């Protein structure tokens, strides 16, 4: 199969999934509402009682929090891609696609690309809401537009990587409902045992080690650094010292591993 067909077939499938999103706008809407709710709840409920780097100022926590919320939001796209793929399997669309002379990876690639577009939309809305409630890049250290955009780039890459995990989950379960829960449950420990919502340096040492090597934490730390927000942990762990590189490496590694596994599973799908 030529490379051209892989690209064009993926675009055909991505287009199809984007058309679907416009026909089911409530899916996109819920995808946006959920993180907005998190922003509001964490800012106003936890904001006053959290200590970051020794400060309990709600404004400090707010600026600390946003990188974590952004990162958690992009990873939640996993559930969407898992459910989407499982739905295509159940409805027989995957069989239709597998009987067509198209590139084998295109159905999954098209799906993850469409999910990336949705993540962009969600992230844009979320950033606006964050600015409204008082999030300010450069609140702790000076930054610039390039660094802020770089942070969003890392977030999108992380989200894209996680949708490949979602694709594998979607291919492995029997129903879209199972895919939705299966796509989300494991994200809670991954996103909470991290530096996203609390200062990891206050965790017990063994938990702190996990948090610091958590791929998710690298992106959060990188975003805080690039946003110029507070809470950049001073730690001996390599991913915390070089968070931008660590975030890039983790994301690329996740894509490489899970894309390979998912495409292999798709080819063998005996549904």
């Amino acid at each position, binding site marked *: *199969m030529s490379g051209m*067909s892989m690209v*064009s*077939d993926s675009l*055909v499938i991505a*287009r*199809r999934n984007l*058309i*679907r999103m416009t*026909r*089911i706008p409530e899916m996109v809407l819920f995808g946006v509402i959920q993180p907005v709710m998190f922003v509001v709840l964490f800012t106003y409920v936890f904001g006053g009682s959290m200590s970051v780097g020794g400060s309990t100022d709600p404004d400090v926590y707010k600026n600390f929090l946003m990188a974590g919320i952004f990162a958690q939001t992009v990873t939640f796209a996993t559930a969407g891609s898992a459910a989407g793929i499982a739905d295509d399997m159940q*409805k*027989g*669309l995957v*069989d*239709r*696609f*597998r*009987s*067509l*002379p*198209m590139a084998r990876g295109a159905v999954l690639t098209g799906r993850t690309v469409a999910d990336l577009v949705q993540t962009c939309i969600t992230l844009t809305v979320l950033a606006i809401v964050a600015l409204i409630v008082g999030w300010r890049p450069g609140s702790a250290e000076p930054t610039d537009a390039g660094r802020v955009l770089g942070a969003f780039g890392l977030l999108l890459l992380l989200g894209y990587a996680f949708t490949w995990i979602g694709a594998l989950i979607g291919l492995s379960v029997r129903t879209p409902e199972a895919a939705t829960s299966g796509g989300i449950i494991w994200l809670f420990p991954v996103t909470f045992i991290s530096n996203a919502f609390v200062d990891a340096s206050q965790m017990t040492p063994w938990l702190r080690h996990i948090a610091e090597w958590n791929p998710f934490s690298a992106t959060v730390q990188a975003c805080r650094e690039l946003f110029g927000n507070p809470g950049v942990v001073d730690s001996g762990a390599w991913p915390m010292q070089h968070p931008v590189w660590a975030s890039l490496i983790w994301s690329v590694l996740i894509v490489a591993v899970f894309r390979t596994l998912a495409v292999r599973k798709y080819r063998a799908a*005996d549904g």
Partner: protein
Amino acid sequence: MPGAIYAEGLVKTFGDVKALDGVDLDVPEGTVLGLLGPNGAGKTTTVRCLTTLLRPDRGRALVAGIDVLKDPVRVRRSIGLSGQFAAVDEYLTGRENLQMVGRLYQMKARPAKARAAELLERFDLADAADRPTKTYSGGMRRRLDLAAALVVSPPVMFMDEPTTGLDPRNRQLLWEVIKQLVSGGTTLLLTTQYLEEADHLAHDIAVVDHGRVIARGTSDQLKARTGGERVEVVVHEREAMATAAEVLRGFGKGDTTVEDHTRKLTVPVTGGAKLLAEVIRELDGRGIEIDDIGLRRPTLDDVFLSLTGHAAETEDDESDKETAS
């Protein structure tokens, strides 16, 4: 030379279940093979193997002369697949669905668009072309599904239970479309639980049960194997049954069966309508009042029953089992 669809010793096992236990098929170009059998007989698994969706554990298959196991990509260019498991996207419109399938058959955007419009017209879906297919009726969806399989006019088509769940009118409509298709030279493998459908559409029939082809031939050949025609009489009064049985014995070529509670007598015969007329005259001459009389030829249902020892349509049995367990 093997036909447009050819299979030899296909075996496929799922865990402990042997779904296919050595299926052999040979469908000459331009003909229709009806694959007939109850649920779970192996019809769908056979189609999945031949359409590259499933890799058989053993055996060999050629579709349009191409080895299914060695060159699945080329096979996919030559086949169209329609039926219970190859769906359309319910949130896309009919037009969008067909255009997408055309693009994935590697057509350029413009020809894919033109072909979609042509098919929508041909399948009487032009009015609904720009509505999401979610709003389509069952019959419309099946027609769209069939249209999707025809986007590149493939030489070989597979249809898995194309009319299951359709009302009689829509079934008729779909049958017409299928007949047109075949008259254009397409080779077709059709699976069905409806004996009437196989009778109606297929040149040859292969009866499948427990993953094997247990009989094959034309519909007439299969019926002849089951036995010829017979006369069935329902008499009005129970008291007349003994006399009627005596009359039938005089004409019959075998044992007369008598069903007391329905007052029905059946006897195998040869001699067709002429003989039937004689039977009626004789019964009438003896003053026996008849509620119903007729010459019955075996249906494919009879064929199936005599071949497998169970009836063809076991769907209800299975759902019964599910509720029981």
